[in-house]
């Protein structure tokens, strides 16, 4: 025993060399050159009035202007609603579906395939398809509701509803990925736990509550972080379906930024990116630290 303690430093040094720092290098070079450097360069432009052709230094005017954007507050609120709603639904549905699809149900392969398939289709394609299906009068959804005598709402045209409709489609498209992450997480839970709890006479519900749920935590962390970030930054689908409309009612921060960009207000939109980054960082970094600490504690 004491021998082993004495011998410990040597294998430990060797173990350290099993993880050479140069493993970071290939990724780091590509990342630094093509992402980090341009991003840092663009920070400078957030302090300028930038037409792409020339830049005039104007200090923090862009930030002042950005916070004066009449739709920014609405965009902020919409962004939070959208992010919390989509990531919440993805966690809950993804987890339940993950449990369902790792249990012994019939047609498991079929269900997994069907569920995952939307992840494969391009966002633009999904956006086009659902926009057509959600058409208030001729769309298949409202026509079906019409068969039951229900007059369906203007999914994407009602100012109060548009954001939620897009969020639902986002969940539709993304829940397959959340489910796969959960499946991987659930499958990696050692069977011994279940066997042991079976001996203790635990019910399926107990297993779910005491084993599956807590031990799927790394998967939950991944799903929350990914879908929350995705939700906060979400743009593609909103743009493909409503372009922030009708009017400005489903604008999120990313679409406000993009509109500034489209309008040629490049400095302003860069400033918007900085704001978005700070906002996401304020939410995600503490949350990620918190969740990871919790995870390590297990």
């Amino acid at each position, binding site marked *: 025993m004491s021998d082993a303690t004495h011998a410990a430093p040597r*294998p430990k040094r*060797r173990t350290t*060399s*099993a*993880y*050479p*720092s140069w*493993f*970071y290098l*290939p*990724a*780091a070079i590509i*990342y630094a050159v*093509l992402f980090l*450097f*341009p*991003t840092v*360069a*663009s920070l400078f*432009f957030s302090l300028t009035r930038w037409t792409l052709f020339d830049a005039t230094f104007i200090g923090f005017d862009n930030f002042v202007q950005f916070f004066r954007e009449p739709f920014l507050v609405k965009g902020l609120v919409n962004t939070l609603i959208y992010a919390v709603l989509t990531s919440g639904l993805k966690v809950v549905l993804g987890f339940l579906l993950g449990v*369902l699809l790792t249990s012994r*149900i*019939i*047609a498991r*392969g079929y*269900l*997994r*395939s*069907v569920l*995952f*398939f*939307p*992840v*494969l*289709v391009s*966002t*633009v*394609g999904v956006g*086009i*398809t659902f926009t*057509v299906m959600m058409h208030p009068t*001729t769309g*298949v959804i409202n*026509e079906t509701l019409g068969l039951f005598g229900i007059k369906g709402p203007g999914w994407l045209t009602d100012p109060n509803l548009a954001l939620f409709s897009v969020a639902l489609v986002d969940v539709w498209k993304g829940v397959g990925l959340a489910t*796969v992450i959960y499946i*991987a997480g659930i*499958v*990696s839970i050692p*069977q011994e736990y279940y066997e042991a709890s079976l001996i203790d006479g635990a019910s399926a519900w107990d297993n779910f509550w005491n084993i599956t749920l807590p031990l799927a935590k790394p998967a939950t962390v*991944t799903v929350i972080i*990914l879908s929350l970030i995705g939700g906060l*930054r979400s743009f593609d689908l909103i743009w493909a379906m409503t372009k922030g409309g009708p009017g400005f009612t489903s604008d999120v921060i*990313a679409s406000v930024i993009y509109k500034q960009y489209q309008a040629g207000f490049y400095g302003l939109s860069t400033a918007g*990116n900085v704001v*978005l*980054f700070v906002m996401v*960082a304020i939410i*995600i*970094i503490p949350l*990620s630290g918190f969740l990871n600490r919790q995870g390590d504690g297990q």
Partner: protein
Amino acid sequence: MNYLRRNWIGILAILVSTIVFLVPFAFIVLTALKDKRQSSLREFSLPNGFHLWDNLVEVIQTRNYMVLTAFVNSAILTVASVTLLVIFAAMVGFVLQRKPSAWTGLVNFLVLAGLIIPPAVVPTIWVLQGLGLFKTLHGLIFIEVAYGLSFCVLLFKAFVATIPRELDEATIIDGASPLRLFFEIVLPLLRPVVITVILVQSVAIFNDFTNPLYYLPGTKNVTVQLTLYNFQSQYNTSYNLLFTNILLITIPPLIVFLFFNRQIVAGMTAGAVKG
């Protein structure tokens, strides 16, 4: 009783999933079968004739067989970037999870930053021009790698944690180099997550729309998503051709998926047995 209940859930799941997930695809297929006039009504209805073949021919012939060029370009782009992504990101994820060091905090931050910050297009073009990589396929490959790294590192890092550390130690004590440890022991064990990454990233890159638009302009460099523009214009949309095109460009991801779907199940079952 339990068995019955499970089956009942299964049947319900099949019904619900069929309605929720297959109807939209049925809509795509049905629209692709129609002619321009009927498709412009955008109804969920049976086509008044079989026009898929005509539509297909028209889509393929449009703008000098642009779709075919696009398929070749997208295939190269996807395969190359995903390969690099898997290897580079797994290396980072592996070391990041295993060896806490002064770098760890910074790397974690950069990983999050990569997820959060939207890319700055114009400065990136300047860099690419400086490197002589603008308007080249390998330039775009590196871009896709740079933009995809964060997501992949996050996944790899989470799942490296499930591989027992004792395994590395044993291998190294046996005299293996870190590279051999990584490629022969760790990477194979990461199989389920590797497959997830391959699947998700190849789909994302194959379906990428904005990056090729900015970094790879030019008719010869077209990628599949850009071909959608041929049929969707601001004023006139040929829905039949648009949806035929959507159908056509969904086939490769579908094949990848059908192929890897078994792999996912197999890979995961193996993991479960090993547990």
